[in-house]
């Protein structure tokens, strides 16, 4: 079966005065119809840039420098603007991080929903409004008809994120890219929003790319994980395998650093050091300055993704030992 989304050797560069800066390096992953993938990593690892590059909406001066993004039989990386516009918000929807900043403060919720429907479907205003109402009910917004006439500031953060989710559902997309959808919300609301997202993906058989730094969230929602570090994928496999038997020292560190993995009263474990800046990458494996298994080869050669003994793809020279 052909995958829904097939990203191959994707590289994204930012054209800076000092020359191009590679923020995403040779990233490949694929997603089947209805499958949910977690893109995990710390801030600056290139997760969001990867997510935005799928709909070719990287902030200037970033651009896709190499690779292909096959989606429903078309290469999004080479698509002209007009065709791309027809895919954005239609076949692929995006959910942004901060619902306080995502909705336009001077337009009503109704306007912001109806315009999306009318940009992609040949319907009347009235029909578009009915679609909007239906989706608002789907995300459990009470008295949706009244809500359509209200402005974003009349909603709480959690409600706004529900509305953003409702907007992303308007055109029944086959893929939703959610960029840290719960990071800006408080903990109780986080769980609610994630449950809602999971429920909607399952009922409508929608694909989901969940971009987050929260391993706990990823393990609840997704079937597969790709761990990103310094612009590249260092480990990818099924969520269960990766969280239970992580293959890459970085992933192992991440999981060991979760507060619940130690006994009460223990000091929290951490990965020493910080991710190197993209301007100042170490030679070889980018993780080598922080890695306890580091040997000479790690400082010279960039490891590629290889299957390890438990069947996970790991980019580490010592994948079979660690």
């Amino acid at each position, binding site marked *: 079966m052909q995958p829904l989304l097939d990203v191959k050797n994707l590289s994204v560069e930012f054209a800076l005065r000092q020359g191009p800066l590679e923020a995403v390096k040779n990233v490949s992953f694929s997603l089947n119809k209805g499958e949910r993938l977690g893109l995990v990593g710390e801030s600056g690892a290139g997760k969001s840039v990867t997510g935005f590059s799928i*709909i070719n*909406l990287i*902030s200037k001066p970033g651009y896709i420098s190499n690779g292909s993004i096959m989606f429903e039989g078309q290469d999004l990386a080479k698509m002209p603007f007009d065709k791309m*516009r*027809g*895919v*954005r*918000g*239609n076949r692929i*929807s*995006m959910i*942004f991080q*901060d619902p306080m*900043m*995502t*909705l*336009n*403060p*001077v*337009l009503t919720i109704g306007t912001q929903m109806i*315009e*999306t429907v009318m*940009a*992609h479907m040949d319907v009347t205003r009235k029909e578009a409004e009915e679609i909007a109402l239906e989706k608002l009910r789907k995300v459990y917004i009470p008295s949706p008809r009244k809500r359509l006439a209200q*402005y974003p*500031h*009349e909603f709480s953060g959690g409600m706004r994120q529900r509305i*953003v989710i409702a*907007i992303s559902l308007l055109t029944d997309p086959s893929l939703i890219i959610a960029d840290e959808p719960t990071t800006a919300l408080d903990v109780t609301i986080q769980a609610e929003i994630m449950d809602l997202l999971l429920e909607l993906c399952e009922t409508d058989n929608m694909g989901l790319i969940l971009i987050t730094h929260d391993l706990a969230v990823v393990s609840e929602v997704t079937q597969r994980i790709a761990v990103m570090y310094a612009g590249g994928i260092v480990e990818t496999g099924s969520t269960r395998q990766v969280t239970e038997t992580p293959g890459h020292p970085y992933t192992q560190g991440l999981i060991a650093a979760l507060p619940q993995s130690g006994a009460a009263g223990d000091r929290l474990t951490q990965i020493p050091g910080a991710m190197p800046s993209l301007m100042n990458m170490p030679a070889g494996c980018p993780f080598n300055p922080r890695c306890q298994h580091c040997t000479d080869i790690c400082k010279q050669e960039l490891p590629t993704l290889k299957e390890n003994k438990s069947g996970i793809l790991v980019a580490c020279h010592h994948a079979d030992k660690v």
Partner: protein
Amino acid sequence: MFAFIVRRIAQAIIVMLIISFIGFAIKQSFGDPVREITGVSVSAAEREKIRDELGLNDPFMVQFGRFMQGAVKGDIGRSFFYKKSALDVILSKAPATLELVMCSALIIVIFSVPLGIYSAIRPKALFSRFVMGGSIVGVSIPVFLTAILMIYVFSVELHWLPSYGRGETVNLGGWRTGFLTLDGWEHLIMPSIALSSIMLPLFIRLIRSEMMEVLENDYIKYAWAKGLMPKRVWIVHAFKNTLLPVITVGGVQLGTMIAFTILTETVFQWQGMGFMFIEAVERGDAPLMVAYLMVVGLIFVVVNTVVDVIYGLVNPQVRITGQK
């Protein structure tokens, strides 16, 4: 919304009181009205008597109270020169100034909005750079220089446009308008361009910089991610947010423009309030100057109050605050 408007009007009244007070204080310390009435041949004792009769020896605040009583009824003093009510003099000059300001404001809106938007969304385009460079030149050249240059080129050298006056006007129930004759329009062209020559570049730059800031927002990126048409993203999503600060500044600038007419009207001998004010200063006509100050102050206050109300209509968050 109603409470919001009431509060704004109350504030406007306080501002007008302060302006009146300053105006009255200027009047008190500027010249001697008795001397203007009587000339030099009257004895000191008789003058003192007249002063008493006119109430000029009363305490300052009592006199201010009397002045305010008159001001509410529209009596803000008599012009020494014209020998009639200062307000009447100003009102007879106001149409000329208002028509000039209206035309300039129109020029500013028609040109600044598209140019500002374009140079914000295509900051690197050659045309945008040209507009930005031109606007620096426009801001830097003083109005009187622009005006004189225009007169030199279009009147003296090319003989295309008249260089002074309002031309043929039509009296519409006390409002002398130049809008109804071709001659009136021809006379209006250069003064209104000269008057807008400073504000137009300022507005282009203001709209551009506000718009560029708005375009950086997440909700604009989100609008793109929803797959909207570029026109809709720029006009509906970005420009509507750009309008908020532009309206605020615009209101203040509209008031400033009325004050700016002093220069333009003087160069073009335009028979408006600004030209009248310069004449009043030359003649030492204190009541007329004070009356001008108060009328312009009133226009400022009214414009700003209207702008606040409009701002409330554009920005939904202000509307809510007003309801509380």
